[in-house]
């Protein structure tokens, strides 16, 4: 059963130069106990998608259309009050670059206990014990519960954010580049933690990254995004072994494997288009070495090919 279903979602940033089509009619779903990876170059609309799911899109961004069906109900039509009962409990997020995401004047324990008390209406002591358990769960000793954020390292703060996001046993958790910006060893440890938690807590998650090798370790399915559009969707093994879309292929060739396999790295020539005036036809065609005339004129529809969903004219 799909916990989350995104249908034809459109999010635009209404800038002075015109609307930037950051998320342009995307469709994907996440099944129970599965982790879906959302991947693409910087600026392709990953965070915007994540924020839309939380209904957190802020000015000048605007959700222009579509549905986000969470456990059978459309988030986009919910009242603020309904959203509040979801956020932090059933639907949670670990945000990108969240080094200042903890309140500097509250202890980490209090910040975890707070979300538990808000949603479960239990007494202070029980909530505090639960908070301590959460800390142990994410690999921070519960003795650190009375620490303030500035007393914790960057990696510990991120663990703290994960502790908050998993405190109320969420049905769906979004992790937006949870390991970006930390040093390599800490990244490794966090990935291990996330994988542990996925098993222990049976998480259903959307895992955002711009690095395919990270995705390959944590995800069941992958959604490849480019300039606000979905290029390819497939299960992780198949996508990694037989990428169909030229963009997916380029992406795989452009990142070193986190396991250190030797590979000739080829960076993708050119840069992503400006989303205010994306190219006609397929958005990737100016950088695609296989582009034919049809790619420059007609935007490809998503099709099913060999168990993948792919938006490309040349894939047979």
């Amino acid at each position, binding site marked *: 059963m799909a916990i989350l279903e995104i249908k034809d979602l459109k999010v635009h940033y209404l800038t002075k130069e015109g609307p930037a089509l950051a998320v342009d009619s995307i469709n994907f779903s996440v099944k129970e106990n599965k982790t879906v990876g959302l991947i693409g170059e910087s600026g392709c609309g990953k965070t915007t998608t994540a924020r839309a799911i939380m209904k*957190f899109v802020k000015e000048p961004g605007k959700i222009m259309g579509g549905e986000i069906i969470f456990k059978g109900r459309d988030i986009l039509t919910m009242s603020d009050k309904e959203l509040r009962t979801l956020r932090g409990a059933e639907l949670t997020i670990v*945000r990108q670059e969240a080094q*200042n995401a903890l309140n500097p004047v*509250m202890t980490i324990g209090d910040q975890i206990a*707070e*979300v538990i008390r808000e949603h479960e209406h239990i007494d202070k002591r029980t909530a505090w014990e639960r908070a301590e358990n959460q800390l142990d769960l994410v690999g921070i000793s519960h003795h650190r519960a009375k620490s303030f954020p*500035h*007393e914790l390292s960057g990696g510990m703060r991120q663990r703290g954010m994960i502790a*908050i996001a998993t405190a109320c046993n969420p049905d769906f958790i979004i992790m937006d580049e949870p390991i970006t910006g930390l040093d390599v060893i800490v990244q490794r440890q966090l990935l291990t933690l996330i994988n542990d938690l996925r098993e222990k807590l049976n998480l259903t998650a959307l895992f955002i990254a711009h690095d395919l090798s990270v995705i390959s370790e944590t995800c069941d399915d992958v959604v490849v995004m480019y300039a606000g559009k979905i290029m390819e969707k497939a299960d992780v093994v198949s996508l990694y072994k037989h990428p169909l879309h030229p963009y997916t292929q380029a992406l795989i060739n452009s990142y070193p494997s986190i396991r250190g396999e030797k590979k000739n790295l080829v960076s993708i020539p050119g840069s992503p288009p400006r989303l205010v005036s994306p190219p006609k036809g397929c958005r990737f065609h100016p950088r695609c070495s296989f582009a034919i005339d049809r790619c420059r004129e007609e935007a490809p529809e998503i099709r099913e090919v060999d168990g993948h969903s792919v938006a490309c004219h040349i894939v047979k």
Partner: protein
Amino acid sequence: MKTLIFALKKISGAIVTIFAIVIANFVIFRVSPGDPIRMMFRDPRVSAEALQRMRVKFGLDKSMWGQFVDYFKQLMHGNLGFSFWQKRPVLDVIGDRIVQTLILVVTALVIATILGIILGAISGWKSGSKTDRTILSVSLVLYSVPTFAMGILLLLVFGYVLLIFPLGGISSPASGFTGFLYAKDVLWHMVLPAFSIVLWYVGEYILLTRSSMVEVMDQDYIVTARAKGLRESVIMRKHALRNALLPVVTLSGVNFAFAIAGVIEAETVFSWPGIGRLTYDAVMKRDYPLLQGIFLIFAVSVVLANLLVDLIYSRIDPRIKTGAAHD
């Protein structure tokens, strides 16, 4: 332990500052023009020998250093000198007035702080809204009007024209009120002077709380609070305001120094028998010892107010004690 070290550091800093103030206070009055003995005895018939005797009696024949040692010794015994004008010890003169001033200042500052924080927080939280614009423009106007001008305006409108509040003083003369009735009478007299101070400060507190709040609302931890599904009122109080108040607390300490200027103006306009009014009179009467005593009291109270603020600040901002960067 950290807290103790922090507190000790701050306290010793305050002691050093007070000592420096004592020296400055001594020097300033020695280098000011005029012979204090001549000031005391304006009668030209007083003989030169008599003046010399007085000089010796007050220790003014000694060297600067000798005088300073005397001054310091006396200070340690709580002796602030002798008022020429009132012919009484300075400490007694100040002691008679200090309570009236404290009542006025504390009341005014408490009201201004609470009102300013509430209005500033609302204004910042709803920044850009109509409520915000209204609060903002009112506070800008209030902030730009000096206390004495506000005092005179209040006096004219509520005292002379509307006849609601008394024109000045601390109580109705010869009313014979005691106990509760007396307190009520004092309160009645305090309304206008207190509000002339409140109205000035409230503007500043609103502006500061507002800008601090606007800044805090853009912070990541506010998004985190929203992502937790907390109610807006909780986010505002527990997450936004607690952080936004940090600079406001600092301001309160600094403000205390300016409060003194405001008090001198307000007490003078409303003839409130406090230290402010006393300062004005001491200046008019060229009563140097009294002025010196008043300055010392003012300066020390500013230092103590700042010490208190530092200690409070370290309690509400956990980053201070460990010296972590404040961002």
